């Protein structure tokens, strides 16, 4: 079966969907605002940038490996967070939920160290 739509009803339906979309927009914005704050750390030239980071509890931290060589992101206690081996352009995300100071390093190149302070 084929629904035939005349021009005026087509305009109406487009208008109606636009109204619906507009109505939905604030909801979308609200949910984005309610999402966790995010912070990026770049792994480049065998170092974490920034190496020291202070964030609010609940912040999502994402590390991206921009080197030609694989790296890892591992908390010094070897437990709080521990990434898989990140090859070039691979990412690791950790949500810093508990306040505290977390030192971390690359377990393959342990001279690479960083710190996250969660407030």
């Amino acid at each position, binding site marked *: 079966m084929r629904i035939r739509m005349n021009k005026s009803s087509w305009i109406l339906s487009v208008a109606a969907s636009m109204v619906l979309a507009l109505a939905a927009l604030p909801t979308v914005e609200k949910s984005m605002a309610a999402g966790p704050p995010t912070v990026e750390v770049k792994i480049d030239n*065998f170092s974490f940038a920034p190496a020291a980071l202070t964030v609010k509890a609940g912040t999502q931290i994402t590390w991206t490996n921009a080197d*030609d060589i694989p790296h890892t992101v591992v908390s010094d206690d070897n437990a709080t967070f521990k990434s898989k*081996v990140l090859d070039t352009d691979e990412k690791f995300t950790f949500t810093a939920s508990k306040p505290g100071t977390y030192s971390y390093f690359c377990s*393959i*190149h*342990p*001279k690479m160290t960083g710190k996250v302070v969660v407030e």
Partner: protein
Amino acid sequence: MPQQNNHDEILFDHNHDGIDRRGFLKCMAWAGTGALCVLEGGVLKSYALNDPSGVKKAAKGELSFVQISDSHMGFNKPANPDVVATLKAAMDKINALPVPPEFMLHTGDISHLSKPEEFDTVDQILKSAPTKDVFFVPGEHDVLEDNGQQYLARYGKNTKGAGWYSFDKKGVHLIGLVNVMNLKSGGMGSLGAEQLAWLEDDVRHLSKSTPVIVFAHMPLWNIYPEWGWGTDDSAQALSYLKRFGSVTVLNGHIHQTMQKVEGNVTFHTATSTAFPQPHPGAAPSPGPMKVPADQLRGLLGVTNVNYVRKHHALALIDSTLE
């Protein structure tokens, strides 16, 4: 250039063996700039890398073996998009040696990402070696994710702990050490208490005239701590070897040739068969060094080690893949 008279290099010949520190440093520079360097029968000699007669002359001795390192199978970035071809070129070089090596050492970073297919590829290429005797130690790239379990299953038969072991060849005692496990934040390579205790015990029964060769992935001397090019507890390991007349330490990891003589210990790092790395501090990081394609093979290579019984000395010959 390298065929010049070497006598003018010897200023302080403490051991009356024709070698002094300056001679070695000079030799080191040649190795890095496209010449090969030979310590044969205790006398420093050098040969042009592509001088076949030099290589032929150097390849005589009681015991001759080859060290390869850092094949990084799986690496495919611009520094060297074809690490299979360069490893095969290394095998061709080894197969062309006038005297086939008694055995081969691979000082780690066999694979790039510890993937089974990467190890498989290397194993396949090594089948073309002139010897079936290949001894391995792991690099940090070989023990990713699984604490080295796969490495041990493949290469660790008859080894202790994380894969350390020793064996004897024609009166030379060889020791393979593992310094890439349980690395601590801010640190360098690590041997650990268990391995150190084993090492002390392993060499206890040896007479001090036994030539000892130690091989491990990361350097057992502090080349450049800022880049982690060293091993935190290597001094303790070397203290167990002090009483021996001839100790040679062979490492990989830094993808370039370096040598140092300290007392009776000669330290030597080998080039990679995959990609070069910058000289210490010469770049912001130790990442792969991108060089023009026509220069790449001049910076990759193999090391031929030649033991001459009469003099109790080892000749190390680095040759590039060109």
